């Protein structure tokens, strides 16, 4: 009976992961197709990869997309961290809840509404659409994500830590830089990477504010898909998937290495203390 349960549980897991990954692997598989459609696999070829690397416009769009994502998430993390600290410091419960609600409203609002409102805002003030408008809108929609990632970490922090630092004569800046920031740094990093992911794959907001002459990857793929999808997009997707895979594996290995190192240091310290 136990064996039966074990078997079905694994089968269910395989089913779920197959459902999640089947479309991606389908895309990856056809990136090596010699033909130009995703219906018949004619033979193995690097043709679409060669086309992709020859397409300087596409490479430029990839670089611009990465630039927007890196920069927007960095600025959103700085602003969001300061925002989270301010919300954390608010003593009045009603005000704190109102600020949190205002933050959460932006999280649950449909992207189309946010995109349209940004478009109206930028055109009303005569702001030229392009790199700056995309960057500003990405910063704006990433801030609530960062705040949401940092606030739980701040709430976890014991007030006694701050009080102890103050008692020992630390200034406000020292408390912030040596107590608060080290404690919330996992939240800050998590917020940064969440904001980066949101910015990288955003389509709706970018579509509204992108203007003429500047494009991100999602908007470009949409524009190309309207003319019939090229397998060059598959090749690009494969490379991006591999890039994400390498990043995640690297992060996992780094975390494992630092955990092992920390554990070893603790054991060594304990061995020294014990008589």
């Amino acid at each position, binding site marked *: 009976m136990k064996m039966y349960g074990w078997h079905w549980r694994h089968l269910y897991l395989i089913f779920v992961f197959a459902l999640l990954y089947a479309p991606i692997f389908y895309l990856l598989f056809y990136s090596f197709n010699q033909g130009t459609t995703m219906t018949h696999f004619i033979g193995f070829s690097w043709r679409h990869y060669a086309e992709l690397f020859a397409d300087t416009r596409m490479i*430029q769009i990839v670089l611009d997309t990465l630039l927007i994502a890196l920069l927007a998430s960095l600025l959103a993390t700085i602003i969001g961290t300061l925002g989270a600290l301010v919300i954390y410091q608010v003593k009045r419960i009603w005000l704190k809840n109102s600020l949190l609600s205002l933050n959460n409203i932006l999280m649950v609002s449909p992207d189309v509404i946010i995109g349209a409102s940004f478009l109206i805002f930028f055109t009303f003030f005569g702001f030229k659409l392009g790199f700056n408008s995309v960057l500003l809108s990405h910063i704006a929609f990433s801030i609530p994500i960062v705040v949401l990632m940092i606030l739980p970490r701040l709430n976890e922090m014991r007030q006694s830590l701050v009080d102890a630092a103050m008692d020992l004569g630390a200034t406000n800046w020292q408390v912030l830089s040596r107590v608060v920031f080290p404690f919330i740094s996992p939240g800050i990093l998590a917020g940064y990477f969440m904001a980066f992911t949101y910015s990288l794959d955003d389509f709706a907001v970018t579509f509204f504010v992108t203007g003429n002459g500047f494009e991100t990857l999602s908007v470009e793929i949409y524009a190309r898909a309207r003319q019939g999808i090229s397998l060059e997009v598959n090749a690009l997707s494969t490379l991006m998937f591999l890039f994400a895979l390498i990043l995640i594996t690297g992060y996992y290995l780094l975390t494992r290495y630092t955990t092992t190192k920390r554990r070893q240091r603790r054991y060594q310290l304990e061995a020294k203390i014990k008589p």
Partner: protein
Amino acid sequence: MKRLISFALAILAVCALLVLGSSQLQAANGVKADHN
């Protein structure tokens, strides 16, 4: 704090490289468009 600042600086360095790469490609694309 130092780690966070170095992380931010590393990102800014990557951004600078991306700007450089993007402007080079933009210039190349402009030349290509002119030829066409």
